[in-house]
C-alpha cells in the first residue's frame, strides 16, 4: 500500500471533500495530482498512489479514489459495486465489459478510470426502469438470448449501442455491431432475434 506518499500539489483531501458536491461539468477534481509545464501546456501527472476524482456513472456523480493504473472496469466493479460489466479476456477482445462512454460502446477493461473523468459512463444497470425491463432486455428474455449469462450484460449494452446507431439494422449491421462480443454458451441465435424484436418494437421504449 502506497496511499500515504502523495505529493499533494493538486487538491487536498479536505478541499476535495468540500468541493465534491459541485456539478460534474466543473473541471475534474484530483487529489495528489501535479501539473507540469510541457511544451507550453499544463500536463497532469498522476500517481504514484491513489488519485481521487469523480465519475459520472448512469447519470450520478460517483467519487472514487483509485490508483491511476486502475481500469474503468475495476473502478466500476470494486469501488462502485456496479458488477454488471464483467472481466473476462481482460484485453479488449470479448466485450463482456462493454459500457457506453458518451453513448459509444467501449471495452471498460481497456480504459483507465481516470480517463473517464468528465465523460458519461452508462452501464447495463441503468437500462431497466422501476420494475420493468428495457424493451431490449425484455427481448433478450423472450428469445432466450442468455444461458450462463456472463457475457449477457456486455451484449445488452452492445445491442443498445447498435440500435441507437442503427434503429433498423440490416443483417450486416448486426454482424458488425456485435462482432466485438463473444459468448461461450452459444446464445447468438437468441441475441440476434432479440435485436430484431427490439428494433421492430421501438427499442427506446
Amino acid at each position, binding site marked *: *500500500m*502506497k496511499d500515504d506518499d502523495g505529493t499533494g500539489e493538486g487538491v487536498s483531501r479536505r478541499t476535495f471533500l468540500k468541493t465534491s458536491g459541485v456539478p460534474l461539468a466543473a473541471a475534474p477534481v484530483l487529489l495528489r495530482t501535479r501539473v507540469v509545464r510541457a511544451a507550453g501546456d499544463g500536463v497532469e501527472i498522476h500517481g504514484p498512489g491513489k488519485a481521487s476524482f469523480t465519475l459520472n456513472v448512469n447519470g450520478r456523480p460517483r467519487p472514487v479514489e483509485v490508483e491511476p493504473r486502475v481500469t474503468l472496469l475495476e473502478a466500476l466493479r470494486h469501488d462502485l459495486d456496479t458488477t454488471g460489466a464483467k472481466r*473476462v479476456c481482460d484485453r479488449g477482445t470479448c466485450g463482456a465489459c462493454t459500457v457506453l462512454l458518451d453513448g459509444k460502446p467501449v471495452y471498460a477493461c481497456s480504459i483507465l478510470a481516470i480517463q473517464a473523468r468528465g465523460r458519461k459512463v452508462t452501464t447495463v444497470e441503468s437500462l431497466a426502469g422501476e420494475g420493468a425491463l428495457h424493451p431490449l432486455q425484455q427481448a433478450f428474455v423472450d428469445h*432466450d438470448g442468455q*444461458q450462463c449469462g*456472463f457475457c449477457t450484460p456486455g451484449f445488452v449494452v452492445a445491442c443498445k449501442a447498435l440500435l441507437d446507431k442503427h434503429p433498423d439494422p440490416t443483417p450486416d449491421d448486426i454482424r458488425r455491431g456485435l462482432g466485438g462480443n463473444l*459468448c461461450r454458451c452459444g446464445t447468438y*441465435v437468441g441475441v440476434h432475434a432479440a435485436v430484431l424484436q427490439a428494433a421492430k418494437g421501438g427499442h427506446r421504449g
Partner: protein
Amino acid sequence: MAEYKWPEAGKRTLIGTRISRLDGPDKVSGRAKYTYDVSRPGLLFGKIVRSPYAHSKVVSVDTSAAEAMPGVKAVLVIQGPGTEVQWAGDEIVALAAVDEPTAEDAARAVKVQYEKLPHVVDDYDVKAAGAAAKPMAEQTQGEPDKAFAEAEVVSEGEYGSTVMTHCCLEAHGAISEWENDKSLLVHISTQNVSGIAGQMAGPLGIPAGDIRVKMDHIGGGFGSKFGPDRWTIVAAQLSKKAGGKPVKIMLERDAEQTIAGTRPSAYGRVKLGAKKDGTLTAWHSETWGSGGIGGGGRVPLPYVLEIPHRRSLHTAVATNVGSSRAWRAPNHPQACVLTMGAFEDLAAKLQRDPYDLLMQNIAMTGVRSSIYKEELEVANDLMGWKKSWHPRGDKTAGPVKRGLGLAIHTWGGRGHDSAGDLTLQPDGSVELKMGTQDLGTGTRTAITIVVADTLGLPMEAVRLRIGDTLYPPSGGSGGSTTIGGVSAASRRGSLDLLDQLFAKVAPALGVEPGALEAVGGRVRVKGDPGQSLSWAEAAGKLGGIPLTVRGTNPGPGDLINSGVGGVQMADVSVDVETGRVRVNKLVAVQDCGLVISLKTAESQCYGALIMGISYALYEERVMDPISGRMLNPNMEFYKLAGLADIGELVVRMMTGKGYDERGVIGLGEPPVISPGASISNAVANAIGVRVPQIPLTPRRVLSALEGRRA
C-alpha cells in the same frame, strides 16, 4: 400413495411448453450475482505465482520482499524447494493483499529459482514422446483379421481433433472466509455445490459439515468445475493466516486458459471394411492422444455403430501440461470425428450417399435404431439433403465449393441423485429448497415448471432456492444428469405433498383424498369441478403448521431414463484459394425423452451447435515445443466463434408419442458431439479430400488440398 408418473400429454399445463427462463431478467439487467461479483466485508485479493516452466524443480523461494509490502496480509508457499513441477502454470506461491493491484505487485516481488528439466508438450508425435507414450490394452471383438481379409472394399484414413480449452467466461475461482476458527464459508464458481465441502474437508482438516458452500450463478463450466481446485483450498489457508478475512482468488485469463480445463486430443488411423453392397463388416483403429500429465482416457470406438468385427488400439501420451478435465460429453466428440469421418470416407469410396449407407446399416446403431432412422428422415427434410447432396468433390466452377456432411451420436444422461424439501405454508405459499445449481441450462426454470405443473399452480406461485449446502444435496451438474435428477425429485416431492394436503382437505369436501386433484390453482373433486377450494383455502386446512416433504431421486416410478440418439447435418462452403470454411446451415435433430422446458432445451441445442462450429473451425490450444508454454492463453488467439460465424441453425426436438413416455433424459452433452464430424464430413464432400484434423483452419484445409500434412 401417489402414482409416480408424468402427466399425460393432454394434462400437462407447463411441462413441455416454451417458458422464458426465470433468471433471465436478472441476467439481462446485471443483477445476477456470480462468484466473481461477490464482495465481502474486509475482502482480500489473492494472487498466485505460477511456474513458467513445463517441467522443473523448485530450487529456492524468496517471499521476503512480498511479505514486507504494505497491504500484504498473507503469504503461502504451495510448492517449496525440492518440489518437481510438471507443467507451466502450476501453483508455487499464493498471497493475499488489500486490493488487486497490491496483490499483483506482491506476486511480482516473489523470487523463485527453478532448475529446468526436459519436457514433452507435443501430443501428436508419439515417437518423440518416448516413454511418455503408453499403449493401452487392445480391444477386440469378433474376428477382425478374417473380416478384413474377406472385405470387398476397405477404406483407410486419418482423423482427429486437437486439444481445446473450456474457456469459461467466468474464470475458476472462489472466496473463502473463516466465520470463526472452525467454520468456513465458500462462495465458489462450481458445477457441484453439494460436492465441494467433502473435497475441501480433508485438505483443510475440518469436518465437511463445517464448510458452507454457496453459489447463485455460474459463468460457464462445461465440465471443468467439479472440484474446489487447489486455489480454493489455498484461499481458505490464506484466509486463516489473515485472521479469517475473506480471500478471493479468481484465475486470470491466461491461467484459466492454461490450467483450468482442456479437452484431450485424439488422433487416429482408421481402417473400415465392407461388402460391395455397403454392409459394414470390419473396423481397425490405432489411436493416440493426450489429456495432459495424466495421459488421458480412451475414446470409445467404433462410435455408435456396432460393427461386428473390430479391433482398437490406443496409446495415451502423457505431456507436461495440466490434466485435462471433463469437457461436454467426454471423449464422444473425438470418437464421433474418428468414426463418422471413416464412415463418410468409406461411403465416398463406395460412391454412395452416406445417408443411404447409414440407413442401410442402421441396425448397427443397436437398440435405438428406429430413433436414428426417424431422426435421419427428419434431418433430411430440414436440410433438403437428398435434393442437394452431390458425390464427393463439388464440380462447379469457381473457388468456393459447397458440400454436405452428417454425423450421429449418443449419450446416457440418466438423472443423478437429488433431494429437495418442498414446503407448503398455511398461507398457501410454496417453496422448494434444493442444493443443486443452474449452469445456464435452465435448471431453475425446469424445476419450477415441474412443481407448478404438478401442484396446478402458476410459475410465480413457486419460490425456488438452490445453490447452497444448507439445502438437501443434489448431484454435480455433469454428464447431462441434472434434469433427470432434479425433475424426478421435484415431481415426487410435489406428488407426495399433494397426497398429504388432500388427506387434510378431503373431509372439508366430503370425499376421499383419492377423489381430489389440484388444477388451475384449486383443489377440486375429480369429475365435479364445482366442489373445490382455492389453493390458499386448502392450505388453510393444514392447521397452521407448514407441511414439508422431501422429494428424492432415485425413488418409486419410472420418471427418468437413459440413452439418446441424435442426428446432425452440415452444409458448408469452402474457399479453396483461402482455405476458409463457412457453415451455411447446421441441422440438429435431437431426442431426450420427455422435454420439461422446451425453450431452454432448444437453447441447449442452439448453444451446442455454436460451440460445435467453434471447435470444428477455430478452437485450438497451441503449445510451444521449445518453452513448453501455451502460446495462445487469451481470447484473441484462442478463437471462439462469433455471431457472424454461425450460419443458419435449425433445431428440432423429437417429442410426442414414442419419445415422451420414455421419461426425462439429459440433454447438455448430446447435441455438442456431432458438429465436428458433420462439418468435417461436409468439407470433405465439398473439396474432395479429407482434412484429417479439426479445427478445420485455413492452413489445414490448404495443406489437405495440396496433399501434405498441415
